[in-house]
């Protein structure tokens, strides 16, 4: 049942002039940050977080969603224009986008990426608006055992996709969870790793930790290559939107890729980059002319671009309904909810449906406005690629320091930011992904509380511990995601062996 009063309130909230202004500002900022190589959506959201401290819930969340959405699209502009993806999500776009740019069809490539991003975004918003309330209705019945299963699922999936080594991913994931055990024990008040300071009674603060992990570590890595120069041809930047004939030709690709992106976004940790690559390889597999991919064809641009923007709506489904972030950017977005005193999860749909509907409507409007703002801004924004890293590094550092302090008026939190930044830098240099670390840090408290409550409820009985049909379903899905790939490979190799024998 749609709550009409909540929908009416959502319209009123969203079309408030201040909120609309923030929505536009968010799109512009997101585009700018997305274009700058190295600064992806999590960093963009993290840097804007301190400003939302002074705002109401709806305008602040709309600002961050606009930044999130536009930053993912913004990454494709530098991917097309200079072959350097502004974000990880745009890596697949480089292949055909930059090839098209080099052929002198840069405007066409930029138009295709803009259109595909918007279509992908809109499809995922529709899925979000329909699926999230349904999932919330189911999730409201979840107890500790179900939340434990969901948390384990989220973490294991993140670890699996995070890098080449499973154990390295698991190690940093467990490290992220371990760090959430610092502070007073929520269940019995024991002091854990407080080291005699009252600052740690509430544990390590989420926002400074995530800002440090993403922003500080990124700029430290960027500082190493700060003097590398970027050169690109500024002509061929006039955007040409694809005509109806072209859209008709690409409609199957657009729909498939948007749905792939949405589904991959829903799976915790499988971010926009995975969605984009998956959609790209799927279209290449289906194509009658796969060797043309990578040479600069429209199909190779619309597939990754529609999929990566579709992951935004997808990632918000588990984030809003279960409090389990669907991506690192969504993990940072969770921090914004907490700043506003809101705890994402099934109860939020019951308690504040107006906010939920405002977010759905807001995402829809963001995608529509991005078309117009993108058309006007691309030509100017693309020149930002020339901003040297030597200016970006100190500015982002100062913004992070100042922003984190502004949220809490605590120098201790700046210390946490710095510590998390150094930790992020070290693990990234050693070849670890920070995605499991960040998701582990967000999921840690849910995992600990649900595990301890489940063990207490089970009272020593394994049968009782697993007496949860939903939980068993989630564990089965987890087993499927782990063993499906190896099983298919094994069957294929077996069949290949039989063919050779015959």
């Amino acid at each position, binding site marked *: 049942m749609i709550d009409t009063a909540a929908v009416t309130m959502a319209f009123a909230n969203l079309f408030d002039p201040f909120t609309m202004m923030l929505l536009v500002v968010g799109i512009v900022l997101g585009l700018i940050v997305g274009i700058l190589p190295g600064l992806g959506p999590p960093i963009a959201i993290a840097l804007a977080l301190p400003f939302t401290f002074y705002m109401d819930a709806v305008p602040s969340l709309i600002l961050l969603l606009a930044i999130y959405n536009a930053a993912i699209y913004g990454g494709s502009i530098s991917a097309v224009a200079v072959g350097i993806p502004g974000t990880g999500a745009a890596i697949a776009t480089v292949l055909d986008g930059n090839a098209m740019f080099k052929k002198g069809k840069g405007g066409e490539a930029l138009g295709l990426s803009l259109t595909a991003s918007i279509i992908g975004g809109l499809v995922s918003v529709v899925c979000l608006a329909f699926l999230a309330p349904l999932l919330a209705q189911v999730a409201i019945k979840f107890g500790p055992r179900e939340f434990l299963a969901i948390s384990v699922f989220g973490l294991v999936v993140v670890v699996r996709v995070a890098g080449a*080594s499973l154990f*390295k991913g698991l*190690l940093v994931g467990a490290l992220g969870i371990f760090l959430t055990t610092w502070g007073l024990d929520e269940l019995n008040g024991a002091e854990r790793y407080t080291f005699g300071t009252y600052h740690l009674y509430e544990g390590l603060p989420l926002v400074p930790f995530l800002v440090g992990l993403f922003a500080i570590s990124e700029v430290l890595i960027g500082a190493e290559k*700060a003097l590398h120069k970027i050169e690109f041809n500024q002509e061929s930047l006039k955007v040409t939107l694809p005509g109806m004939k072209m859209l008709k030709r690409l409609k199957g690709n657009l729909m498939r890729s948007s749905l792939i992106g949405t589904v991959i976004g829903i799976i915790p940790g499988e971010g926009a980059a995975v969605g984009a690559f998956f959609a790209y390889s799927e279209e290449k597999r289906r194509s009658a002319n796969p060797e043309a991919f990578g040479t600069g064809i429209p199909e190779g641009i619309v597939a990754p671009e529609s999929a990566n923007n579709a992951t935004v709506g997808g990632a918000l489904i588990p984030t809003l309904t279960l409090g389990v972030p669907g991506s690192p950017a969504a993990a940072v977005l969770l921090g914004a909810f907490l700043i506003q005193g809101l705890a994402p999860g099934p109860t939020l749909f019951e308690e504040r449906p107006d906010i939920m509907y405002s977010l759905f409507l807001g995402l829809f409007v963001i995608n529509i406005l991005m078309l117009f703002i993108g058309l006007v801004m691309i030509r100017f924004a693309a020149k930002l690629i020339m901003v040297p890293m030597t*200016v970006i590094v*100190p500015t982002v550092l100062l913004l992070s320091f100042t922003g984190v*302090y502004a949220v809490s008026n605590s120098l201790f939190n700046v210390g946490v930011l710095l510590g998390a930044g150094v930790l992020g830098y*070290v693990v990234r*240099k*050693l070849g670890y992904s920070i995605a499991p670390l960040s998701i582990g840090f967000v999921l840690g408290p849910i995992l600990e509380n649900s595990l301890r409550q489940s063990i207490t409820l089970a009272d020593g009985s394994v049968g009782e511990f697993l007496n949860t049909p939903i939980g068993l379903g989630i564990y089965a899905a987890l087993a499927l995601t782990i063993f499906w790939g190896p099983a298919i490979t094994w069957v294929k190799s077996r069949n290949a062996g039989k063919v050779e024998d015959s």
Partner: protein
Amino acid sequence: MFSQRLANIVFMVLTLAGCIYFAKIAQGFEAAGLMASSGLPSKFFPLLMLGLIALCAIIVFATYVIKGTASDKDEGTLYASPLEAFRGLLTLIAVIAGYFIWSTWGYLAMAVFIGPATCLAMGVRSPAIYATVLVLAGSVYLIFTQLLGTQF
């Protein structure tokens, strides 16, 4: 510059040492009063995570010692060149110094220091970049103090 193999082996040794240290601290966790007897002890979950971290660290350690790499390909070195290592580590030192300058002499001193110091660490020679960074630092200060009312 610094092989991934050696760096990861050292990191795993430090991780294992850290696990032992934190596990020892966890032995001293005590719940207050009546709550002490309710449910699982407070040390249960941290020890579980430390055990998992230690297990993974041992496996990664063994992988690097025996195979030399944790993936299918050669992981190479931590830094592409000594110059990149120098710039990266010097920037890190500048950032840490910035924090201590803030805690000792206040925010303004840090804001003036951190931009030029990181530029110096990155090997910037252009005065225009230094000027731009200082102007941007001034803008950040003004935005937070005048627009958001932050007090440093």
